[in-house]
């Protein structure tokens, strides 16, 4: 039968027992030949195992691991982080500002006059040249306007 100290003998050899338990085991070993034999066996085994040669991994392992890392899919937060780098962010922000300014300067923008949305005003703008002709001639009665509008037809009739 096993002695109830036997379970602690390997930990004793490994120096892993608490001090109080270690003292108890040492006292027990003095009077138990079975435990002394097991302790000797454990010490011998530990010494033999220490004689085994080291396993030396292949020098290609490092390269293989780094290649596997390169092949990993890039997670979304990593892609976002790459986009937020100053080298990418600053030119992108500058371009966005330039486009925005161009739209403000060239386009109608929110400050455009309301009149331009009125169809009558748009018609006036389209025929602005004709209106200027009327004003130049100093015509303001409806009959005179009709004569001017039909001037081309009158010339053909003559």
């Amino acid at each position, binding site marked *: 039968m096993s002695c109830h100290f036997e379970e602690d003998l390997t*930990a004793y050899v490994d120096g892993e027992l608490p001090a109080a338990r270690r003292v108890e085991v040492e006292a027990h070993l003095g009077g138990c030949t079975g435990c002394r034999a097991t302790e000797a066996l454990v010490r011998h085994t530990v010494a033999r195992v220490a004689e085994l*040669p080291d396993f*030396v991994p292949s020098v290609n392992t490092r390269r293989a691991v780094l290649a596997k890392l390169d092949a*990993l899919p890039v997670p979304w937060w990593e892609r976002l982080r790459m986009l937020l780098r100053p080298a990418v962010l600053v030119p992108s922000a500058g371009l966005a500002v330039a486009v925005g300014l161009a739209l403000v300067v060239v386009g109608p923008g929110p400050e455009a006059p309301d009149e331009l949305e009125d169809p009558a005003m748009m018609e006036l703008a389209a025929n602005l040249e004709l209106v200027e002709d009327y004003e130049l001639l100093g015509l303001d009665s409806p009959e005179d306007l009709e004569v001017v509008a039909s001037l081309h037809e009158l010339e053909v009739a003559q």
Partner: protein
Amino acid sequence: MLKVAAGDRRAFAWLFDRYHASVARFAFRFVGDRERAEELTQDIFVKLYRNAKAYQPTARFKTFLFRVATNHCLNEVRRGEYRVAHTSTEAPDGEETGGVEMAGPDGDRPDQALAGRELERAVGDALRSMSDRERAAFTMCRFEGMAYRDIAEALEASESAVKSLIHRATLAVARRIEELQAGTVPARSRA
């Protein structure tokens, strides 16, 4: 490791250079096959890189690494039937179990080299015959010199449990070595 979590490849390369031999040694003793150990080592470090954010600075890095390594090796062995068969089947006569390079004084004399190979085979047989957790605990203790407390953390077990695992595993190895030496060095034990 915090730098690795931030995507620093140079920090990862430094960790790899420092610890990959330990992981490879552990994997080799765990599966008993050189090529498989190399693959496992690669997988463990890739897993470490991908899960670097899970590392808590309160844990010792080596303990964290061996928890990753142990879980990976245990899962791999449990997952594949051929791997279970591999680890429970003795190598044919004349075939090296993993082709460990014999270095140092053992390689200088043929009789010593032979003794070294026989010892390697005996220990390999013992490792194959024990449970996965006994093998993991024994390997971390005897080949990595890890303290019981750290092994307990890596195995997510109590120190008391680790003490029992290592004791049983050590006696299993002792029996194989006794058998090896039976003709020359009679040993007496209750183990």
